[in-house]
Structures are given as C-alpha cells and as structure tokens.
C-alpha cells in the first residue's frame, strides 16, 4: 500500500474517495508496538475521534502521544481522505519526542 501510494498514483484512492462508489468505510489499524487496535471509520471522519478513542482505551493522554501515518504526523483535523489513506492502513502511535541533553 505504501508502495502504491509512493508510486505516484494518488489518483486511485483520491478518485475512489471522491467517487461516490468508493467504499465509505475504512479499516484502520492503530498500533503502538504492544497493542493493535482496529478501527472502522468513514473516510470523512476526523481522525481526532479515532485518536481520542485509542487514547481512552489505552489510558493515555492525547498530548503525550503522536499518531504517525507513514512518518507523517496525524493532526486532529486530518481525515483519511486528506491523508489519502486506504483500507487496512496503519497508524503508528509514538511517544512524544522530548530532548534536552
């Protein structure tokens, strides 16, 4: 999928997303190395909902975790559409990066 996305063919999902015939729901896996949680969300749903749900389930603060999609930070306002996500894509959950010394 990632290859597919990188291969410079963004048209397909985008077209799919735009197209009314495209599937409304996506299965998205959220993993933080220990746990894997699957969410089924609409393409237009803000990922904030997913992130909040995951944090609540895992007992984490939203402030202290970062959701990454293919290395890109997922902002609360992002939707699977804006991120050009496809069914079965994975969101990685990382700890907040902090450094001082």
């Amino acid at each position: 999928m990632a290859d597919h996305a990188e291969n410079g063919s963004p048209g397909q999902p985008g077209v799919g997303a735009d197209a009314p015939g495209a599937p409304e729901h996506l299965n998205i896996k959220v993993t933080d190395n220990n746990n894997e949680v699957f969410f089924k969300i609409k393409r237009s749903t803000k990922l904030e909902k997913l992130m909040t749900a995951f944090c609540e389930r895992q007992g984490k603060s939203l402030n202290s975790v970062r959701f990454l999609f293919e290395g890109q930070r997922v902002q609360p306002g992002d939707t699977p559409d804006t991120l050009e996500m496809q069914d079965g894509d994975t969101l990685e959950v990382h700890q907040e990066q902090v450094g001082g010394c």
Partner: protein
Amino acid sequence: MPNQVSTPRTTRNSRGLRQSPEPSSKPAGISKRRRISGSPTPTTNAQFLGQSSQPAQAPALQPIQEEEPHAGTPTSVAPPAATRPQVFPPPIALLPAARPAANHATTNSPPWTPVRLQIRYRNRYIERTPPPPPTPKSPGCETRRFRQRRDKEGDEKFARELYQAIRNDHHMRSCWCGLPMIYNSREEAEAGSGHLRFYVEGFGPKTLRVIQKKDDLRWHCICGNLEYPAAYKNLINDNTSVNANGKRPAEDSEIDLIAQNQGTDSAESVERVLPGLAEPVVNEEESPLAQSMWAQARDIVSRAVATMGGSALSILGKIRQQLRGDAYETIDTRRQDAQNGTIIVKRVKRQARGPPTKDSPSDQASDDDGFENLMWTDNPTKRIGLEQIQCIAQEFANQLKSIETGNLIGGASVAAIQLQIQPGQDLGTSIAIHKYQEQEYGPMMPGESDRAKADKLVKALKSYSKCLNMSIDFMRVVYDPALFHELKEKHKTLPRRLELGGVEFRQGAKTVGEFLCFIQSLKSVCAMEPVLLEAICKMIVDANAIHKKEMVPSFVELKLNPIEGMPGFFPEDKKSILEELSADELNIQPLYDFRYPSPEPSDKDESEDQPGDYRLVSKPKGILKPSREWVDAPASPKYVPTPQKKRKIAFHSPVSNFTAPSHIPARVMTPYEAERLRCTKLLAEVLGDEHSKRLFEAAQTVSRPTIEDQLNPEIVRRDEREMGLAYHARKYGSFLEDLQTDMVEREEEKEERKKLRFKPSPIAVRIPLPPLPSDSTQRRRRDRTPESSDTDSPPPSPFGAKNPFLTRPPEPKPKRKTEPVYASLEEFFATDQEGLLLSRERIDQVEIYRQIRDEFEAGLRRQVEEKRQREIEEEERRKQEERRKEEEARRRKEADELAVLTGLRRPNRSLITRISDEWDSKVRNAANANPSTELVKTLEGQPLTRRDFEEKLLPPTAWLNDNVIIGSILYISDYVNNAKGASNQEPKCAALTSYFWPRLLSHGPSGCGRLLRRASVRKANFFDLESILIPICDNAHWTLAVIRPQKRQVAHLDSLRAGRGHDDVKAKLLELVRFILEDQFVESEWSALDFEAPRQTNGWDCGVFTITNAMCIALGLNPTQSYTENQLLLQRRRIAAVLLNEGFKGEFSLDGL
C-alpha cells in the same frame, strides 16, 4: 658434679656472678672443704712468681694474699719467683703501703675513705666522716642575721647551701666573675677578702665553712655578665657522669672541684682536700691517681685483715667462692674471614657450671663441654706468631721512643695532625695519642685554656706510654716459652682454671687488653696490617682470659681427631663449643662489675665502723638487691652519691674529666670587654690585691653563651634538676639580698659619718674604684632588663624569687652626693645645659634643612618612579592591545576561511534580542492559559496548548518537545522561503519533521517518500534547495541534520559537541541524497562537514540550540558568531513568541540579519 647447671650461655658476658647460687644456701664450710680437697698442691699468691722479687710491691697486701684461701684454684702456677724478675709483677701502679700510713701520721688527719665492700656481690659505701670539728665561734665581724641563720642551719649545711645558692645564681645569670673563694683554712679566710668567705676546715671535703666580714664591702659578685663559671662549666658539661644516673653528682665532688679549680695547682688541691690519699708523685710514669688508688686499696685491705682475723677469713672464703669468675670456660680461636676482610673470632661457647657440691668436689667432672678436646700447645707464640708479637712489641717500643724524643705533633683533630705533620715526625703515634687523649680525657675544646689543654695532653701522654710499657711487658711475660713450659710441666692435664700471676698482674692484663682494644679501634684512622690486627685481637682475647683467670687461649689448641683429617670424613654433628664473633665486638669486660680497687682482696668487716660514723650505704641501689643477710645494716640510707661504674676512685670527681660540649661558644670579645680586660689588668698590676686579681681573671675568661642557651627550657630544667636551683633560690635568695642591703646600708652609714667628720672638698672628683666593674655592672644590668632601665628595681630573676644579686648598687646612690658622677657621656651632656643651648638652634636649623632636602629628594624620586611605572604600564597595555588585535585578526581570518568553505557569514545584527513587553505578556499568558485551549496551530496544523509552552518550553531547564521543535523549524523554512520569494512547491529551504529521521532509519529512504514529498523535496528541485533542515531526536537529545544541496554539503550539528556531528548521521544523509538524486548523484561533489556552533554545557538546552542553529544555517549565518549559550533563556521566550506569532514576521522578522 651431678647437679651441674648445664645451661649453655651464649652471651659473652663473662661475669656469671648472678648465676651463682644464693650465698645463704651455702655453708661456710664448703670453701674449706674445697680448699683441702680441690687443690693437690695448695699454693698461694705470695709464692707466685715475681711477687717476692719486688720489694717495692705492697707489703700491706702481702698478708691477705698469704692468708687468702685459694678455694677452687688448684691450678695456679707458681714458677720460681726469682727466675723472671723482669716479668712479674707487671708494671701496674703499685705503691709502698707505708706511704699513706706515713702520710696519715704526719698530717694526723682522720682519713676519709669511701670503701667498697664486696660482700655477696654487693658494694657498700662506708663514708666515715671525721668527728665534727668544734663550731667556730661567731666572730664579731658577723652580722646578727648571718649568725642566726647559720646557727639555725648548722655550720656545714649552711656554708654548703649558701655556696650552692651563690653558685646557682651565678650559673643562672651566667655570671662571668668567679665564685667566692674557698680558702684552705680559717686563717686564710680571715686574711682574705670578700664579704662572704668560704673555707675548708679540717681535712674532709664536707667541712665547708663560711664567715662573713661585715666591714668588707666587696660582694662576691661584681658582674652582670653572661658567663658560666669555669667550675660550673665543668659540672654541667660532663653529662656522662653527672646525669647518667639521673642523680646529681655528690656534693663533695662539686665543692671539691670548685676548690680544685680555684687553686693554682690541681694536684695540690687534691692533696688539700684529701690529705690522706694523695701523695707527691715519685714515679713520673705513674699517675697520682693510680698511686692513690692503690695506696688506698692496700690501706683498706691491710687494715681489714689486721683487725678481722679468723672470722673474716671464713667470710672471705665464702665470698671468694661466690666471686670466682669461673662459672664459665672460654677458649677463643680465631680466623680471618677472607670474604670481607674482617677478623672473625671463633670462641668456645661458654657453659655455665654449677657450683661444686659435696658430691662432686672436683670441678673437672663435666666432660661434655668439649673442654677435653683441648690440649697444651707446644709454643705459646704458635697461635699469634712470634713475628707478629715481635712486630707489635717493636712498634710499641718505637712509639715509646717517639714519645721520649718528643717526635710528635698535637692537634685539634686527626685531620689537623695529618695536615701539620712534618717529615720525621711520628704520625701514627701522634694520631694514636690524640685519639687516646680524646677517649680518656676528652677532646680539646676551643674554650679551654692552654693550660688545660696541655694538662690533658700530658696526662694522655703519660697514660699512653704507661700502657705501652705494660703491653710490652705483658707480651714478654705471657708469650715467654720458658714460662709456658714450666706451666706445662706443672700441669700435666689441662687445667680449667689458670691463675697466672698475681692480682695486680691480672688487673694489668685487663688494662693491657683495654689498651689493645683501643689500638685495635685505631684501624679506622690508621692503616694497619691485617695480620697485626689479628694478632692484636688474639692478644686481647689472651689478656681477657688472664684477667678472668681462665685458660689462656694461646696456650691451648684443639686436639685433632685423627680420622678428621682423612678424606671422606663426614663431620659428626657433635656439640660444637665454638661460636664466632667479629673482632669488632671484642672488649675486655671487667671480672667484676666494678674494678676498684681490686676484685680479689675483700674488705674489712663493718664491725670496724664506729656507731657515730657517717653512713653505711648499699651502693648499686638499682642494680642489685640489698642483702638479706645483712642484718646489722642500718635502715634505709636515704641519699647516696652513686658513683659511676667507670669512676675509678671516689674522691676523683667525675666532673674532672669532662668533655666540654660544643655548644659552649668560642671566645668572642667585644671592644668593651677588651677595654675592661685592659683596665682590670692594669688595676691588678697596680693595686696587686686579691680582689683586683680576681677581677682580672674573671675578665680574662669571659665568654658568653647565647641568650637562647640560657633561656632554653631544657637547660633550665636540667640545671634545676641538677642543682636544686629553685630550692636554693627560695631558701637563700632573700637572705642574701638582705645581707647585701645590710652591707650597703652599713657603707652608707659609714659614709654619712665620714661626711660629718670632714666635708669633702667640692672640687674633688670622685672616681669610683674599681671603676669598671661597678659601672659596667650597673649598666649591664640595666641593659639586660629593659623595664628596669630607669629604676634600680631588681629584674625578675629566672627562678621567680627576687634575685639577690641584682639589687644592690655597690656604691652610694648618686643623689646623695654633692658632686655628680656621670655614668655616661649622655648623662654628662644632659646636665650641661648652657653648652648645649648655644648649638641647639643651629642643630634645629640643620635638622630642618635636612628634612627639607630629604623630602625634596624623596619627591623627586617618587616622581621619577611614577613616570617609569606609567611608561611600563603603557608599554604593557600597548603590547596587550597588539596581541589582542593579532588574535582577533587571526580568528577573523580563520572564520573567513571557514565562511568560504561553509558559506556561513557573521550576522549583521544580533540574532537573539529582547522581545517586546507586549509579546512578553502574551508569552506569559500562554503559560497561564486554559490547559485545553488550543493556543495556536503550527504550519503543520498541530495545535499547541498551554502544556507545550508552560511545561516544554518556557521553564529555563525544560526539555523541548517535538511540537516546539517542528513548529519552529517549519516557521524558519517558511520565513526563508518567503524572504527569498520561493513558493511552497519550489522552496529554497525545506524542513522535515523530527519523525522523518526514525522513519528513515527504520524504513530506509524509500519509506520516506510521503514525508519528502510533503516537504517538497524532489529530485527535480533538489539542487534549487539551499538547505534541508532535519531535526533529530535521539535518546532524548535534539540535534540538527542539514543538507545543503546547492553547496553539495551534508552536516550534522550536535550542540553538546560544539556543532560537530556524528559520522553515521552524515553517512545516512549522503545515503538519502543518493536515493533522492538517483543518477544525478556525483559522490565526489558531496562532502560531509562540521559547522562550528556554540557548545552546550548544560543538560536541558539542546532543543533551543537545535532551533537556533537551524535559524543560522537557514539564513546562512555562522552559529558561533550569532549567539551564545547564555542567550538561550531569552531565546526560549522568543521561540514561544514566534510560535504564538505564527512565524518570523513582524517583530520577529529575521530581515536584515
């Protein structure tokens, strides 16, 4: 001998006396029994060779020797007396006993004789004082106070203590004038001079007396100088004899010594003090000391024998049995150690022998000590060698000849002697005598008078030549083959004891042995042939054996076991009686602990002592326990002068042969002292009275110890201990003071009376006589005590009490006089007012001129000095400036070079400036905002909340989080692109998030397509990019990776390493570049380099460093020239403000950098 004590003794101590059984356990009859059974041919010493042939020998000694039971000495040799008259008796000091007796008769004085009784190893002192002479009637010339005190204390004690008080005072003040004279008799004292006059009454040293002459105004002390009195110098310096016992020397010795020192001739002094013992020297080769010693001994013995009779004999026998030194057998054999050249003496181990008992009367019973292996040798010179003996004898004879001809040289040291030796003079003998003198009489001290030195030298010479003679005779006798053969014939079997010669000869053997020891010790300074040295060592052993009545080692040799010499003989492990010891350890130990007067003849019974005798004292208090058997001993004598072991005779003071220590300084005479010496000499010549002479003598011997010496607490304590300083000062200080003031008052009264009688003429100039001492005394006292400079009050004395001698001016006080007497020039001028008035004005003027001139010169000097100082400083500053400029230029040059390389430049203005108050408050508000409120969104769309500011950015030590870093970096690239007019699609500066780097590491460059695309980094526009900023968070540490495609550079800035990066990061960057550029990548174009950046020294600022470095790199600035670490606290607020401001715009624009 069944109960033989078979404990082998390995010690070389030949005095096995204490191992003998307790005397009480032995009945007196044993000695008789032994005498009868033990000796097949009972002989006596009187029969012994040579004794009868010497008519001059002590006849007084004869009876006791004849009656002496020779218990256990069956083997004494008795060759015919007449055969060797030249051999025996040895040339030891022997005196006709008639002489002391005659002396007694003539002087008719009760002898004072310290007698040492040898009874069961105990020495007893019997000091018999003569009956106290009648107390001299107090003469009319004594004051009542004096008389009272004297009567109270008792004549003897009073005089003695008073003398000691004066002496102590002299010592404490280091007075240079002599102590009060001690006269020989009362008549002399009466005719003498001085306020207090001491004299010796009768003939005992304990009869010191003092009289006072109240009309004699010469107080004994006339000085305030610092000097040890000569007598006291002797006393305190002889630390070996004074202090070794921790006791004061006997008072007798002190007084006697003082008497001797004040006399003109020491021999006379001795005679005076001890008339019964000293006698005129007849034989030049015999020292008077030895004469008197032997005379005394003989006297004692003869008297004892005469009075004691039979009962004494039994006691003597008992004692002799105990005192026999035959508890051990000694045979020495010697060889020379080839390795180190030292002579090793092999000696037979000494084996203790039990006392003979009834069961085994013979003391030859023991067979297991190896003694049976010995046999007579065939020639007494075989061991040592005839040649060696002759050589040594010849050498001694040569030395004697040198002494006779005076072919010698004396000197202060061996080196001096060696330097000054003239050809033809006998160097060896000179050195030997010098050493001998040092050993026996002490070295020459610089402070000694020439007379004392000469005296020492003469004594040493005499003694030395006597020893030489004795040694020659010793060799002649002992190594005489004829004598030896007679011995052999007499004793077919080897005797265990060999009583060779008489008592004197054996004592002389000891002296010879000691002398040979001394000669042997000379090997350190003189080259001596090893053969001779060995011979001497052997002789020492022989002498030792003779002294102890043992078998002479030269007379015996070991029986050789016939099979021992055969090849293949394996030595048995038999009990070896040989032990080795170095020749250096050889010494002659006395047969008994003491050597006075002779070990053999015992003393008289104590019953001879009168009940009124002075005291009876056990001598070696700490050494031996008091006798249990001595029933009649008086209870616990309290104080006794314990004589030294080395003391030869009791009346010979241990102080007399002192060695002066080095801390007595050599004589240094000030001009003042020289002047005084001259004056006193003149006075002594003109006036000729005794007082002046004494003054002169005192002035002659002046030398001063340093003040430190006097104040040395150790010395003070020692003196205190030795002399009872405090005691005498307490007791007599005030008394003497009173006496003195009394005397002064007396004189003043006399003066008054005289004045009443006739008026002195006003023009009469009064010359105080003696002028110098009195004047100098006053002045010196004043000088020494600063606080008493204006008064006559006595200075504090060293021992607390008022010093009796410092208070009295010996002349009338000046205020009473009509004519003033000026003590000094200043005084004189002070009184002469008119004469001074004339010149005072002039002096003042001159003084003012001088002051002005001085000030002017000083001012000039100061100015010059300041000017020079300024110049120096100017020069210094100029040099520093130059150095600084050079440094700066160098740095700028380097920076320029780096800038050429990196393309980084110095910012035109400061990068981090203060933020305005408005933004400051906004930042503060952000930190206090509602935690859930979204304060601002970054370019990425990430909302920032209060947490990001309050917790992660603004606190000085907060660690920055990814929100802040990424937000800032994005704003930087946004600003750069905006400033350069680049669109987001074709940027000049690209920024990646901090999540790019972990993805790059985990998925490789191919996994980062989305991120690169989002950052608009493509192959197409790659070379248009000036910089790509990649923040890296690795192990809680923020660093910045930079790709500068235009310059074909990759870099990594680690603030902890001052901008230097990690190579693996740079390698990864190049890998990324290669992936992006694909075929356009030319490896040679690209370089990985390090930028310079400020170094982070704390543990929290790396995020701020990373952001600031990113700003600099993006703007093409050199980070080191743009900011410093301590600006970063402000930079935190600026970053917060930029984030709130949503970019570098407005106030935070980076324009103009």
